[in-house]
């Protein structure tokens, strides 16, 4: 018989309550058939011979004992994981940014990066928000979703958004006062192209829904009579 065809075995000693079984030790001894095993083995429980343990090589006593006891740090098996994403935030959700220079703006969520931050885009043509990282805590998730299946966000990760490391120039005395730094505040063309490619598919899906484009272009604000704890987003 193949092992998969076995019926799942019912527990021999069901719990009356947690920690208390239905049958006593002596009853269980009988149920498990230990008496039969003993009888088969001539009165005693069959024993295996112990495997011969190889003699451990003789350890020399250490030459040096430290003067004070060194405390060992406790074991820590925690793994670093990205922040747990709220269930209301799924790819394509419209989020309301609550802090920073884009506060109040409505933005489309793309994916969560490994650092836990959310990758988000305006789209840029609609409300001026580029591909950007945003913390989950500074965001309200609305229940409006945009279809994001046509967008490829595989290549974006935290390193893409990190600050560029400038190569240190050797200080020359003449150059001290001239400040020969190039104004590196222009965005590299590559990032502009990335923005365009991500937004192209998104904007098509957004324009398919009436009013969604102007919705994303408008800022959110609390008006008189709006009670945030009663609002449904």
């Amino acid at each position: 018989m193949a092992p998969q065809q076995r019926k799942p075995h019912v527990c021999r000693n069901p719990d009356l309550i947690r920690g208390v079984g239905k049958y006593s030790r002596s009853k269980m001894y009988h149920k498990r058939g230990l008496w039969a095993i003993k009888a088969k083995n001539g009165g005693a429980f069959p024993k295996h011979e112990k495997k011969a343990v190889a003699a451990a090589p003789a350890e020399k006593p250490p030459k040096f004992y430290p003067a004070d006891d060194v405390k060992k740090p406790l074991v820590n098996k925690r793994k670093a994981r990205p922040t747990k994403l709220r269930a209301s935030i799924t790819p394509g959700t419209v989020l309301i940014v609550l802090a920073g220079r884009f506060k109040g703006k409505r933005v489309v969520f793309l994916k969560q990066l490994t650092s836990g931050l959310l990758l988000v885009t305006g789209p840029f043509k609609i409300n001026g928000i580029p591909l950007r990282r945003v913390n989950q805590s500074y965001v309200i998730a609305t229940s409006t979703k945009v279809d994001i299946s046509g967008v490829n966000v595989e290549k974006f990760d935290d390193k893409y958004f990190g600050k560029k490391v400038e190569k240190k120039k050797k200080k020359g005395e003449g150059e001290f006062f001239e400040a020969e730094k190039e104004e590196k505040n222009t965005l590299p063309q590559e990032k502009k192209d990335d923005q365009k490619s991500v937004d192209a598919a998104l904007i098509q899906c957004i324009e398919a829904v009436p009013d969604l484009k102007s919705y994303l272009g408008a800022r959110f604000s609390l008006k008189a009579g709006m009670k945030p704890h009663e609002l449904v987003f």
Partner: protein
Amino acid sequence: MPFKRYVEIGRIALVNYGKDYGKLVVIVDVIDQNRALVDAPDMVRGQMNFKRLTLTDIKIDIKRVPNKKTLIAALEAADVKNKWESSSWGRKLIVQKKRASLNDFDRFKIMLAKIKKAGVVRQELAKLKKETTA
């Protein structure tokens, strides 16, 4: 100012407090000065203090403490649901519920619609003003 809505068997009331807040129930029996036996198609028959009930204009024809089947049949026959939803009180409640459940996007669309409507009204008003002054 005599009373118009009386507590009687078959009176439909709105629950205004408690677990069944907002439900329409039928007064099926009167227990004592303060409490009534109350029943609805989707709840277990039970007692409720009159203070938790607000009487409506609707009354159905039932005998004291009918069984659930008879009650539901009587409610259908009197068409309570439609009468309630077409009454101004019932309509107001429906609108309140709708407003409370609005999405952020829905609120935005409503804002646009209100502005549009106001624009149309203002145009018409301007036209009428011109006609009367001219």
